């Protein structure tokens, strides 16, 4: 034998590698064949809700939708300028013929964000309470954020086919880490003396969590939710590759056919949605935490 292992990496035998791939693929295929339906049925309620919500947004007259959105914007932000800006953006989106796609995207983003919050905050709370859980969850979050989305799309699609549910799963996997991380961080940053005070007056774990830790962590958690929304919107195009309808699909079409203007318009519509979500959630968070800032002129 020569010393070829010095210049060339001693690789595993090609046939062995192939065997590993084949075995794993076959195993996963068998798994998805035998359990795919069962797992799919678990997601049925979510799918029904998604369809219902999308139909609600699509079937409601656009004027009512705009009125509802503007009411939410104004109630959350109490800012006229922002409200007018949102009205103009929505008007332009509709005028350029992107209303239906925008509603589809709005519906899936709303559901994904709600799902991320509902799942992410409890996980963040558990992480903040235990170093061990934090040690386990943090690397998983790192993987979720760095693994290319296409890679985890493969098993999801194999398991559940293409459609809304795999789209939601892909978006949530990509978008949930910020809300988990910042919930954990926010709770850990709560002033130690306030926690001591809570303990000294005999508060139990539940009272401390909801009366002290969560409210004090809220600014950080809100920043996490904001990030989650932005990341969910960023996933819209990728999700469209596995059959999620909405603004992503025209963008995808534009890429494959080199339709520059089509891509630009739909891209701008996504940006408009992102800005609306961002400004409204930020303005709401700011208003809710005004008193934390030490404003002497109330």
């Amino acid at each position, binding site marked *: 034998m020569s010393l070829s292992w010095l210049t060339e990496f001693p690789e595993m035998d090609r046939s062995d590698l192939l065997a590993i791939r084949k075995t794993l693929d076959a195993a996963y295929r068998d798994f998805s064949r035998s359990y795919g339906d069962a797992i799919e049925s678990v997601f049925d309620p979510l799918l029904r809700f998604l369809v219902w919500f999308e139909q609600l947004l699509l079937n409601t007259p656009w004027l009512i939708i705009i009125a509802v959105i503007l009411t939410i914007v104004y109630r959350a932000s109490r800012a006229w300028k922002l409200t007018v800006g949102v009205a103009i953006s929505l008007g332009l989106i509709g005028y350029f013929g992107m209303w239906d796609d925008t509603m589809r995207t709005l519906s899936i983003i709303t559901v994904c964000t709600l799902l991320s919050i509902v799942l992410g905050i409890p996980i963040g709370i558990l992480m903040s309470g235990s170093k061990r859980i934090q040690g386990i969850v943090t690397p998983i979050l790192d993987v979720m954020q760095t693994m290319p989305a296409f890679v985890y799309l493969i098993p999801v699609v194999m398991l559940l086919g293409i459609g809304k549910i795999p789209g939601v799963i892909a978006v949530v996997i990509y978008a949930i880490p910020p809300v988990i991380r910042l919930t954990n961080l926010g709770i850990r940053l709560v002033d130690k003396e*306030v926690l001591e*005070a809570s303990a*000294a007056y005999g508060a139990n774990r539940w009272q401390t969590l909801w009366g002290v830790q969560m409210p*004090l962590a809220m600014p950080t958690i809100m920043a996490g939710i904001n990030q989650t929304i932005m990341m969910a919107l960023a996933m819209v195009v990728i999700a469209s590759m596995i059959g999620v309808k909405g603004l992503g699909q025209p963008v995808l079409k534009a890429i494959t056919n080199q339709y520059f203007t089509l891509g630009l318009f739909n891209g701008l519509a996504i940006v408009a949605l992102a800005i609306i979500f961002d400004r409204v959630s930020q303005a709401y968070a700011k208003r809710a935490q005004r008193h934390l800032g030490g404003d002497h002129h109330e």
Partner: protein
Amino acid sequence: MSDVLIKISGLYKVFGKNPQEALAQVKAGKTKDELLVETSHTLGLEDINLEINRGEIFVVMGLSGSGKSTLIRHFNRLIDPTAGSITIDGVDVMGLSSSELREFRRHKISMVFQRFGLLPHKTVQENVAFGLKVQNIGKVERLEKAGKWLQDVGLSGYENQFPSQLSGGQQQRVGLARALCTDADILLMDEAFSALDPLIRSEMQDQLIDLQERLQKTIVFITHDLDEALRLGDRIAILRDGKVVQVGEPKDILLNPADDYVESFVKDVNRARALTVETVMKAPKYRITADTIGEALAQMKTLKSDYGYYVSDEGYQGVVTQESLEQALKAGSEESDTKDSVVDDVPVLSTQDLLENVLPETLDNAHPLAVVSEDGKLEGQLSRGEIAKVLGNN
């Protein structure tokens, strides 16, 4: 009269990975520094034994690192000791289960923090009601009670402000009201006034003394400021490197420091401001009890003095001198009332006066001045020589 409410005995606290093993080494005679170098364990508290009486303000004084904040957190078990026992009002605090401990903290003991520890997202009134909220008391009831305590600490009108809108002194009043609101017998105050300006601090000290006169709580007060300790404390424990070096009344600490360490503290204290007349006065020497001039003169002669304090059944009446008695005799007769001969403008000291306040009167008078208690009884006398000795003895 001394009724022990809190008893701490043999309390040790070792910080580190294996405190029990380190504790054994400490008990075998290892010092704090040796322990840190050899085992990287920190000895926080070493063999603390304290008895705190009901209704007193007990001050624990020590510099940073002396373990005073660690010690106060043992009273309500925010920190658990490595060894030792804590008994409060007959209850073995170490034996409480976690739910019993919560109940104990809710009703028996409350705490005021150095940096206030208020909830920034709640109004002042809600902050004061926090302890009651934890006890699941209804909103109307707890806010009403909180409003009453806010009034007591002088913050009515601020109910709906948020803590960040208040000054430091006002925030600490909220902290104090919160502690009082649960009606706990015991108040732990962890450097409660240390974060405040000197002026606000002394205002808060006065307020605490006023409140204490009314409420008669048992207060454990932590401070690094000896002046504050002397001003507030009925008794003071001085802590150094986790050990109690002296426990005593302010005058014991000032006049008989236990070691060089305590003495070095005491040296800088303004004694005139820290000591009351009571602590330095002597027993009254010349007591005139006769009710007529003749007998008073005779009494004066046997006392071999040219002045005396005339005391009747109703207590101290004033100073009489040889001269004033003779003048009264000329004006009247031997049967005249001794009262007629009392010298007019001689000041009287009260037992509770600070030396600082009586300094001018005492120095102005050649004779020692009479010291009288609140109910008018003659308690002692204070001469300028006595004052000079106490204030000059540094």
